[in-house]
């Protein structure tokens, strides 16, 4: 699954204000929007439903889609928000059911292969070029593709990079971000050993034991992969591949020597651990300071999707008096995880795809919506809201701040999980969490790899 982008939505209002993006009037369609508007003007007005997952898509963008759809198609677009936890359940139940299927739905990029392979989505190859063609993020296009035909296309992408504590790194004697993967691995172990602030259970690099979505980067960075497709179309789990093993061993080393995260922890909210003081001072009811709580700082480095930066920083009050995190460049920094070849290490990209349900009775209306989503205007709006736009021509709309730079850099070499028909089954079975936890617990990597190859290969091929 693609993880959580929701933070963006929450932070969006302030982001717009801060970045001055608020000035862009989303309602004024540029000359290029909506693409193909003329051709669809003749179609019958259809009322359609679009499922978005999580609160990732900000309200402004939703309103824009609804308005544009009314203009182009004349029908009503209803946008319904589903949750990431339950989306597979709901898609499984609803998509085959013409009476209740969403007409267009967002789907996690790693969930896409399973659903496209069983024919849940309509073939939209004929409009592929119109919607962006080769400009679309190709790794995402691939997970929506079956035998050369396009079923789902990239909606937005995120990427994972490192957030670190400049002050803690410096205090431990590491002054510059690492240039290679080996440097990084060494640096975080050193920082853990030095533990300059003397914090109990301190992690130089905090990564949960079951957190394979981040951990996989070490496999990718060493040239390994999770699975390969043979010439006969069959998928094989490649955990026992020498490069994969090498990456898993590096990860195990980090888990044992640099990370004090529970081996059962997933990739949920790692930013909690690199923030300072949740609360400085405790006052009694008379307002006297009774105690100062210790800081919550427990990690010098975390790996997280770009939107995590909304949750990292010093604690301050915003204008409404609410507690918010304010990024402090003195204390916090970002860098893309480096590879050993001078390029950023390939990391697992987050994000999602979008496609039209094959069972939908409103194919024409759905196609109109797809055109609006992939219009220049909407793609730019995604970027302005911190979501990597599916069409690479509009990546510059992300801006050029530290986070946009790290996002674009890390995404430049990002990878996805295998586009195998059974991938959703693999995720649903939680076997990867199991494997990564066993590795973090110090298990024999080679033996585990062989064991899980045998489990995963049949899953990858079965739909």
């Amino acid at each position, binding site marked *: 699954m693609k993880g959580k982008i929701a933070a963006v939505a*929450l932070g969006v209002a302030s982001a717009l204000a801060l970045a001055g993006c608020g000035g862009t009037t989303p309602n004024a369609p540029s000359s290029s929007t909506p693409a193909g508007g003329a051709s669809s003007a003749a179609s019958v007005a259809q009322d359609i439903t679009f499922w978005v997952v999580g609160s990732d898509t900000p309200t402004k963008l939703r309103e824009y889609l609804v308005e544009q759809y009314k203009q182009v198609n004349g029908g009503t677009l209803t946008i319904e928000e589903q949750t990431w936890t339950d989306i597979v359940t709901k898609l499984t139940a609803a998509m085959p059911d013409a009476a209740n299927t969403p007409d267009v739905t967002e789907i996690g990029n790693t969930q896409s292969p399973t659903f496209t392979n069983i024919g849940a989505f309509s073939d939209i190859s004929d409009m592929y070029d119109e919607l962006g063609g080769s400009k679309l993020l190709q790794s995402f296009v691939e997970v929506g593709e079956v035998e050369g035909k396009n079923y789902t296309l990239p909606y937005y992408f995120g990427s994972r990079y490192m957030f670190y504590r400049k002050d803690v790194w410096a205090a431990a004697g590491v002054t510059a971000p690492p240039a290679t993967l080996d440097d990084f691995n060494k640096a975080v172990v050193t920082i853990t050993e030095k533990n300059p602030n003397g914090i109990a259970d301190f992690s130089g690099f905090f990564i949960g034991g079951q957190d394979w979505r981040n951990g996989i980067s070490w496999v990718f960075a060493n040239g390994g992969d999770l699975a390969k497709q043979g010439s006969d179309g069959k998928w094989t789990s490649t955990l026992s591949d020498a490069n994969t093993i090498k990456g898993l061993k590096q990860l195990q080393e980090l888990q044992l020597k640099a990370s004090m995260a529970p081996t059962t922890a997933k990739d949920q909210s790692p930013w909690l651990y690199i923030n300072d003081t949740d609360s400085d001072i405790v006052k009694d009811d008379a307002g006297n300071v009774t105690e100062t709580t210790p800081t919550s700082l427990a990690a010098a480095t975390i790996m997280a999707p770009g939107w995590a930066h909304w949750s990292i920083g010093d604690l301050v009050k915003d204008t409404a008096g609410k507690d918010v995190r304010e990024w402090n460049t003195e204390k916090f920094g970002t860098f893309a995880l480096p590879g050993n070849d001078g390029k950023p290490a390939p990391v697992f990209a987050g994000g999602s795809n979008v496609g039209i349900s094959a069972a939908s009775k409103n194919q024409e209306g759905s196609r109109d919506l797809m055109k609006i989503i992939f219009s220049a205007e909407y793609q730019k709006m995604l970027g302005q809201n911190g979501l990597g736009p599916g069409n690479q021509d509009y990546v510059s709309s992300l801006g050029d701040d530290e986070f946009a730079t790290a996002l674009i850099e890390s995404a430049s070499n990002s990878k996805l999980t295998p586009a195998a028909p059974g991938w959703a089954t693999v995720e649903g079975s939680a076997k990867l969490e199991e494997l990564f936890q066993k590795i973090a617990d110090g298990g024999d990597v080679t033996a585990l790899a062989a064991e899980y190859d045998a489990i995963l290969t049949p899953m990858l091929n079965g739909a």
Partner: protein
Amino acid sequence: MTTTAQPVARKTRHRVKVSRIVFGVIAIILALIWVFPVYWMLSSSLLPNVILTSSTPRFFPWGGSLDNYKAVMQGGTFLKALWMSLQVTLLSVVVAILFAFLAALAISRFKFRGRKGFVLAILFIQMLPAEGLFIAQYKMMSSVHLLNTVIGVSILYIAAVVPFTIWMLRGFVAGIPAELEESAQVDGCTPAGAFFRITFPLLAPGLVASGVYAFLQAWNEFTIALVILQREDMRTLPLWLRTFITASQARETDWGAVMAASTLVAIPVIIFFLLVQGRLTSGLVAGAVKG
């Protein structure tokens, strides 16, 4: 008191008194343990997240405010979900109790062919794991156009609680001696009249108890609702709460808001319970037994 003629009685009374005190203390301690999570939810719902996530827990809501509630109530989604939950729960409870009561009457007051089979069926039907049924339930509800409807989800809830409520009520009906009714019939009542005059009042605690059970099941259920009620505007409170929590967790879980949302979902149940609790323990039981 000065006479020494009744030392034994005094000792016994003394012992009874001591044991009463000991029991009282134990009861209070247990009450505190049971209520603590509820208290913690309430207390936390009044505090800002900064305090809640500090390494020293705040046990009392000093300096609390209703800000979290204001934040949660924004957008009106809570009230919509509340209305939905009220409809589903009310319909489920009323129908389930009525049907269960009729069936309980049949199995506790009549001997008939198939009675044993029916009793076994209602016991065994509860042993089927519900987790495997979702897809089939969805297909069924979809084919009769009852997805995203109060009736659709209520039918599934009624079926889920009816077996147990039948058995529960049967226990209460059976617990009332039939001689009472018979003697009333001797006094000139018909069987129906005897039942409603004598048995029905005695059944009140049973009806209340099984009503409470049905209420809770319907109010709390969320896996069936997840599949059957997919539309946003048809969410029941547990679905609303889950969505709220998931959205909050995606960033930095705002525990204060999450606890406020949880409290809002719990409050209607607590009110209902406190209302019923008075009836359950005080007047009705004693009144029915003695009167």
